[in-house]
């Protein structure tokens, strides 16, 4: 079996909504086991990029290609779905199911056997500190706990690759840090590749590499440290404004 160097390979990706270029000539490669963070302001094209990678949206016709885990997307998207975890921007939970029932439902919907679904659900509940909330209806959970439940539902199948769209939006700084520690932990222990988007610029420091997006374009790809060094800034937020200033000039 051929060993894949890159889990995600995007070439010449374009997507338009009307006259707006939501994604503009995007090229990107993400290595196996890497935490890659797409960072940028709202409407930069981060969510559209994830939706293109998952085959939810179709790219513009032309010389573009999307390969994820060696599969050609969108043609082979069903094969990818068995291996992946996906957390959409909205907290997608069934209000009238408990936290545990939600996680277990998605475990089974992702193809796990009944016994594996139970084992993995219990493990995710423990791992994301949901034990005391597991029997509460999702509608009665706080925003942060709902987000943890949604993350547990996305990752319950121990995916080889995860696409997490703004997983930390609306969370307090403590919980945001916990989420990133979890991402690091599974990337190191399970070699899970993670593509995560955020508009909290400073959060991107936690990633292995960062892609900075603006107006559908990827304006920089580097490690956070290198990006900050190249722009002579001490945090990611300042780095971003420095980059934009450079672009505008």
């Amino acid at each position: 079996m051929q060993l894949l160097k890159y889990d995600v390979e995007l070439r010449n990706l374009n997507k338009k909504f009307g006259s707006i270029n939501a994604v503009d000539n995007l090229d990107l490669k993400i290595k196996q086991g890497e935490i890659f963070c797409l960072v940028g302001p709202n409407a930069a094209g981060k969510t559209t990029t994830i939706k293109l990678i998952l085959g939810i949206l179709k790219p513009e016709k032309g010389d573009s290609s999307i390969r994820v885990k060696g599969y050609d997307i969108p043609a082979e998207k069903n094969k990818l779905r068995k291996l992946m975890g996906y957390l959409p921007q909205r907290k997608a939970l069934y209000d009238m199911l408990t936290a545990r029932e939600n996680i277990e439902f998605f475990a089974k919907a992702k193809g796990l056997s009944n016994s594996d679904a139970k084992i993995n659900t219990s493990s995710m509940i423990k791992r994301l500190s949901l034990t005391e909330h597991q029997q509460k209806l999702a509608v009665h959970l706080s925003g942060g706990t709902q987000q943890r439940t949604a993350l547990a539902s996305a990752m319950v199948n121990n995916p080889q690759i995860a696409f997490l769209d703004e997983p930390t939006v609306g969370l307090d700084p403590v919980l945001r840090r916990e989420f990133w520690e979890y991402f690091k932990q599974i990337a190191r222990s399970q070699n899970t590749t993670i593509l995560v988007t955020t508009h909290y610029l400073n959060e991107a420091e936690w990633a292995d590499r960062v892609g900075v997006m603006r107006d559908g374009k990827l304006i920089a790809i580097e490690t956070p440290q290198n990006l900050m060094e190249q722009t002579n800034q001490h945090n990611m937020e300042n780095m971003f404004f420095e980059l934009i200033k450079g672009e505008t000039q």
Partner: protein
Amino acid sequence: MRLTFLIMRRLFRTLSRDHRTVGLVVVGPPLFMVMFGIAFGGEIEHVPIAIINNDSDARVVIPYGNFTVFNETVSSLGDSITNTLDLDDPRVDVTHLTDYESAKKDVDNKKYACVVLIPVNFTYNLVSPLGSNISLEIYFDNSNPQVGGVVIQAIQESFQQATGEFRANLGFDVTYAYGEGISTLDFFTPGMIVYGVFFFSFMLVIMTLIEERRSGTLSLLLQCPYDKIEIILGYLAAFSIVSTIQTTLIILIAGLVFQVSLGVTIANYISLYIAAIIVGWTGLVLAIFLSAFARSEFQAVQFIPITIIPVLLLSGIVIPLSQIPEIIRWVSYLLPTTYSVNLLRQIAIEGYVLEPLNFGLLFQIGFVLMLVVASRLTLKEN
């Protein structure tokens, strides 16, 4: 007052930007009135009946002692009755037959609403003082009392008109193919099962699916490694159980509170449940299909005028199909619920046991399959 004015202005502004709502506000009331007007404004017409006319002209001789006071040929009253019904009465369409037993079978098979047997020497027996009492045989399908009442009225009026004063010897011998002693409630309950199950399946599913879309869970489900068809089948399976529960509740209340009988044998009841589950499916697949075109519960409710109202008015639940003007009756024949109502009435009133090749059943299953395929196409991942 300032807030009242602000709210009024805000409501107009938001409503005017929702084009579908503007359409509903403008088109809805006229559409309602036209549908009600057409549906209730019609008369029951062109009900097929059969007549077997064995009567002929009668030579009537009335002697008085050694004299003859009346000696004339009287034209056949049977012909007169038949002509009145055939040519002058729009309520019935007459077919002339000769074999009574085979005509009765046609009534059993719903080809005719009734068969009237005008016997040999009908005119002679009525007109001649020497004539004997005569009984007119009618074999009658009263499974739809609204239609049955109109047919019997048309027949009686034509006999009154033709026989005039010569009615002393005439009696009617009515045998019921179906629906003897049927009450209004007996007749309407199967239609109410169809309406209740269809309405609740449709509304529950469209609301549930819009909530799934709005919350994002549907989008997540569509990212799972299964075909979309499994999502649709999951809904079908769950709401089949809901339809069964609803049917049971309606049967129990109709039977225990209002003494309506909806079946005699176990096979009748099983048929009733199968038919009711399929009604639920038709409402459900229509809801799944239409849910793709609604972004909110508010927009879902806007589908009621084009789904629930036509089902109530044009499926034969309240108004018989023969009363619906022909110009829109084709809509009735496209509605799966028309066949559901017919099927449930056959089961409940006539004791019919469902057969796999029943046309109404096949039509509904065809409708369900067609919309399952269409829904699979409209269930978009984004």
